[in-house]
């Protein structure tokens, strides 16, 4: 919480040009009625503008000009030429994949860069130039500017009561007994939450507490760094709707960092698309949604799968995000761009106004082909009925100390070659189900028939039966960063997997396996540390399919990956499934993803299956209210999505 560090600082501010501590109190008072007092706001801003340090019209807003971040120790540049403006009361989303520099941009803006990094360029916050003045900037944080962080589970001090943590951010002199309940009410939490400890709250409630704490200083600018990525889809929508409502009521400038373009369109007035440490495109949310003026934005949007239809092929962007310095003298996207011409590789373009309110860094922005129509959906191909490779009956599992069972009687079957999706939010039991089937978890009751063999308890199986079960079912995991042994080379890991599955494991076989998942054979000598997330997940898939299993259990295999990489991995899984006629148990929280790959769906809620059917049937005509709620929480990019 940025707001905590500066409690006294904000109070001491007082002088001209720092409306922080002073503005906070009347602000909060004005909010007691739920609606911001327009007269008061004018008052505060008028007072600020009289100071000569203010820039006209930027009081309460943010302006970043020519921002660059370097690492002096290595001479590397991580981002450069970043300029944007957020007017008071305006919401702007900074969108990009990992490595795009979106988080670094706001960290540089707030003066919160990690050690060893240096920022240059001009930053004005609330009309005060702060890039050359760390003391003003520190005073502003928590007062004029507040930061809402990503992970609600680490954001709060686990040992302190929630109310006191919110009170930390209050301006000097404010009465916590009055202000804390008011802030809690503003974020939609009951008053008694103040007396609770963070572990007694759900993720969504914690993020609301984080928001209340961020609002405590009465900020003019609120920055949120992926505030809902760690939350469930339905909670994400609630929290975002809340943030946007409060932002409008308080008339704050709002900067949202996100990797999700549709989320950005739905939440913010304007979007700034970043890639490899540069700005690619900026414009109004609706305008960019209707027509993208940079091929990268087009590719990014196309790679986000829709939930309302199944695409024949998800248009993946080949390759991965380059380092800033590797593309310093050319268009950063040129190498992955199908429209690139020789000139794109020769000059490093800067964003230029293409039309009013729209900027694009594409040299060919004015001659881009017409916006392609959204790809039509395809219906599921009918797959003949085959014998079941997996048959789960009435599976139950309760973890020690848990209030309710993780699995409360789930039955499921997968036919040979069929892809079955299991969807649900965290706590629905979907991962427990996958781990039981894989034999990593022992169910309390119920049967698991894997290829006709009872595998409910791996401990009771004979050695040959266990080996048979392991060769029938393999699993890939969510986190690409811990799924590979960091101490072993890729080649050694794959050779071992081949041997374990009774296949020849000469270097030629390893190379073939690598190529089958779209990786170069020279990767065999590398260790996981040198690989990107997508490459690691490919290696993990190669390891799992080394012995051509009949069933592949996928536990959220793409949810930690960037959108463009996600599309690649989904394409790879679809291709492997055809080639190896492999069945899949596909666990995910993401309905748009599961729509693209699954033939049938099971919807889990709190350890029970509430709905099942073909993917088209469940997602086009959901029967259960829970399924409908899940479906409504998938961002569609429209301004009305948040309700």
């Amino acid at each position, binding site marked *: 919480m940025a707001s905590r560090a500066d409690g006294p600082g904000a109070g001491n501010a007082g002088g001209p040009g720092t409306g922080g501590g002073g503005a906070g109190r009347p602000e909060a008072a004005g909010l007691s009625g739920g609606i911001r007092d327009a007269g008061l706001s004018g008052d505060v801003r008028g007072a600020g503008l009289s100071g000569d340090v203010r820039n006209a019209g930027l009081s309460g807003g943010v302006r970043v000009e020519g921002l660059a971040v370097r*690492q002096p*120790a*290595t001479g590397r540049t991580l981002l450069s030429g970043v300029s944007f403006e957020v007017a008071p009361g305006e919401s702007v989303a900074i969108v990009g994949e990992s*490595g795009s520099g979106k988080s670094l941009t706001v960290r540089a803006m707030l003066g919160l860069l990690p*050690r060893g990094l240096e920022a240059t360029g001009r930053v004005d916050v609330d009309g005060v130039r702060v890039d050359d003045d760390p003391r003003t900037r520190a005073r502003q944080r928590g007062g004029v500017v507040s930061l809402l962080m990503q992970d609600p589970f680490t954001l709060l001090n686990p040992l302190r009561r929630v109310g006191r943590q919110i009170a930390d951010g209050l301006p000097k002199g404010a009465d916590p007994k009055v202000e804390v309940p008011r802030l809690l009410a503003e974020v939609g939490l009951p008053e008694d939450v103040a007396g609770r400890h963070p572990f007694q709250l759900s993720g969504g409630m914690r993020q609301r507490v984080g928001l209340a704490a961020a609002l405590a200083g009465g900020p003019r600018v609120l920055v949120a760094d992926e505030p809902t990525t760690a939350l469930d889809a339905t909670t994400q929508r609630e929290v975002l709707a809340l943030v946007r409502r409060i932002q409008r009521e308080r008339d704050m400038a709002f900067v949202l960092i996100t990797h999700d373009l549709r989320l950005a369109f739905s939440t913010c007035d304007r979007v700034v698309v970043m890639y490899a440490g540069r700005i690619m495109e900026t414009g109004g949310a609706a305008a960019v949604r209707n027509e993208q003026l940079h091929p990268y934005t087009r590719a990014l949007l196309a790679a986000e799968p829709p939930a309302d239809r199944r695409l024949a092929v998800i248009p993946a962007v080949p390759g991965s995000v380059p380092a800033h310095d590797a593309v310093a003298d050319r268009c950063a996207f040129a190498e992955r761009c199908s429209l690139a011409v020789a000139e794109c590789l020769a000059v490093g373009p800067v964003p230029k106004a293409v039309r009013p309110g729209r900027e694009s860094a594409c040299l060919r922005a004015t001659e881009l082909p017409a916006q392609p129509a959204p790809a039509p959906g395809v219906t599921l191909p009918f797959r003949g009925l085959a014998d079941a490779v997996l048959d789960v009956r009435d599976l139950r599992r309760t973890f020690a100390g848990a209030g309710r069972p993780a699995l409360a009687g789930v039955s499921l079957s997968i036919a040979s070659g069929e892809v079955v999706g299991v969807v649900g939010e965290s706590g629905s039991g979907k991962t427990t189900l996958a781990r039981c089937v894989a034999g990593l978890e022992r169910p309390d009751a119920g049967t698991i028939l894997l290829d006709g063999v009872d595998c409910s308890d791996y401990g009771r199986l004979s050695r040959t039966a266990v080996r048979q079960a*392991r060769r029938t079912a393999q699993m890939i995991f969510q986190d690409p960063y811990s*799924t590979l042994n960091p101490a*072993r080379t890729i080649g050694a890991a794959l050779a071992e997997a081949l041997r*374990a599955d009774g296949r020849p494991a000469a270097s030629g076989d390893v190379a073939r396996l690598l190529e089958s998942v779209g990786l170069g054979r020279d990767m065999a000598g590398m260790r996981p540390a040198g690989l990107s997330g997508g490459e690691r997940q490919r290696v993990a898939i190669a390891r799992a399919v080394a012995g051509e299993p009949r069933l592949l259990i996928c536990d959220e295999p793409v949810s930690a990956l960037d959108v463009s990489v996600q599309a690649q991995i989904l394409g790879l899984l679809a291709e492997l499934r055809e080639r190896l006629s492999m069945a899949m148990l596909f666990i995910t929280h993401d309905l748009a993803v599961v729509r693209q790959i699954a033939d049938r769906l099971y919807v889990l809620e709190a350890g029970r299956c509430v709905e099942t059917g073909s993917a088209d049937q469940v997602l086009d005509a959901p029967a259960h209210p829970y399924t409908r709620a899940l479906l409504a929480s998938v961002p569609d990019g429209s301004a009305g999505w948040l309700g």
Partner: protein
Amino acid sequence: MKHPRAGLARETRRRPPISVAVALAVLVAVAVATVFAPWIVPDATAQDLMLGITGPGPGHPLGTDDLGRDVLELLVAGARTAVPGALCVAAGSMLIGNLVGLPAGYLGGWVDALAMRWADLVFSLPALLVAIVVAGVLGGGYGLAIAVLVVLFAPTDTRVVRGAVLEQRHRPYVEAAQLKNLSAWRIMTRHVWPNIAPVALANVFLNFAYALVSLASLSFLGLGVPAGSPDWGRTLSDNRTQFLTNPWTVIAPGLAIIATAAALNIVGDWLYERVDRRGRAR
């Protein structure tokens, strides 16, 4: 969850800081003394009773002890006794620690229970007191002192290794190896161990320093090397009555023990960071 490209600042290749450079120099000097002492100071124990105890002066930079032996030469010769013993203790206890801690952490169940109760038992005994009693009852001797210390040190290593294994045990890469039906032994040695090796290595250094001091204490109490032998602990003990005549007879071996132990800790920490960073993405 999206990860910002983390660890930017860490990727820079740093040269060892000055403290590590100094510590390395100390260790190199000690190692040279340990290996080459018989050639560097062939007659360190040669007595010159006519000279007797003298303060620092020409020919004897740190003076001589009551038997007229050069203190500096004794110091160099003493490394040959002090260092290999400590090395044996550190290596021995780490070997036991790995052999017991790896299965205890990975397999759990009764293996774990047995190993941990054994560790508890040894922990509950006051270490140095046990060493003194055992060495006293069995008549002392350097070999015995080393053996006793190995037994006393091993439970710590077992716990350290077990704890590190428990942390790795439920990582997806271990589960993936289990799903490939690899044997428990293979997963322990090929998959888990390389990832906990940095911790084990760091502990070797810590133990080495601790064993050096413990052995010196035992020798000081007359339960290690025989009286008169060149050994840092022993020299310190033998000369404590000479403190006022030539303080260097006591200060020099004491400094040698402290400097070596401190240098080992510094280098151990530094090596741990380097080894641990290698192969890790974030």
